[in-house]
């Protein structure tokens, strides 16, 4: 028995709804997102429940999970080098704040060492970058 050929002719698909939806998605991502902050790989900042605007600082220092300080993703720096850099840039003299982008798993010992070293360099205000969350980590 020969079956009837049921192949249909493919008609052109209307692409306008697809384009509309994709444009809407682009708009959504543009409005809801913000440019990536480029944290070093694997760095997770501490979660906080306090709403505070994130402001820029004269210098950003990373404290990674390995308890090392970094000036960029791969450039390790010691506290004495940081102290020199702060003096060189005149950050303390201008009364500018510093930003510490610390991994939440790093130890408080390094936090305290940073605090002390920067206080000795004349820096008063240090801001710790946090990630705003509804549920505070206990």
């Amino acid at each position: 028995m020969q079956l009837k050929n049921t192949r249909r002719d493919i008609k052109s698909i209307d692409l306008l709804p697809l384009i509309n939806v994709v444009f809407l998605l682009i708009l959504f991502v543009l409005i809801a997102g913000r440019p990536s902050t480029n944290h070093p790989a694997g760095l997770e900042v501490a979660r906080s429940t306090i709403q505070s605007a994130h402001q820029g600082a004269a210098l950003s220092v990373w404290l990674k999970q390995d308890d090392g300080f970094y000036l960029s993703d791969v450039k390790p720096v010691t506290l004495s080098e940081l102290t020199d850099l702060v003096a060189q840039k005149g950050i303390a003299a201008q009364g500018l704040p510093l930003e510490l982008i610390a991994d939440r798993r790093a130890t408080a010992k390094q936090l305290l060492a940073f605090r002390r070293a920067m206080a000795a360099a004349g820096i008063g205000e240090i801001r710790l970058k946090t990630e705003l969350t509804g549920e505070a980590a206990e």
Partner: protein
Amino acid sequence: MQLARRQRRAGFMGLTPLIDMIFLLLLFFLLGSDFVTYGQSRLAPPRGTGGETSAAPPVVITLSADGALSWNGARVDAAFLRRETAKLTALNDEQMMVLMPAGSANVQQVTTIMDALQASGAQSITLERDVFDIDLADF
């Protein structure tokens, strides 16, 4: 002389390059965007001007690596910390709070306690290694 008017037929416009571009844009923004909201906690306040200092002595809060808290040497819980901080800051909004975390505590534990203090009204919070490091110029 009358030239013959050539009428052009509107040709079919290929939409594939447009769709490719739009998908590339979508991918770019999806991968390049961050949906996390960032904030800042003050690890140390701006240095004071050396003027009047608060008459009230600072409250020293210690945090051990296992999360245990003490208030001026007495073991307390987080609820006590919030309650007493709220009471003190209601009386004096410049009440100094000194947080002394154990070296082996982690950054998240420190941030959580600083959040609790701030949520209870404390404005002058600083981190110190021990009581001998407290510098009133920091407040």
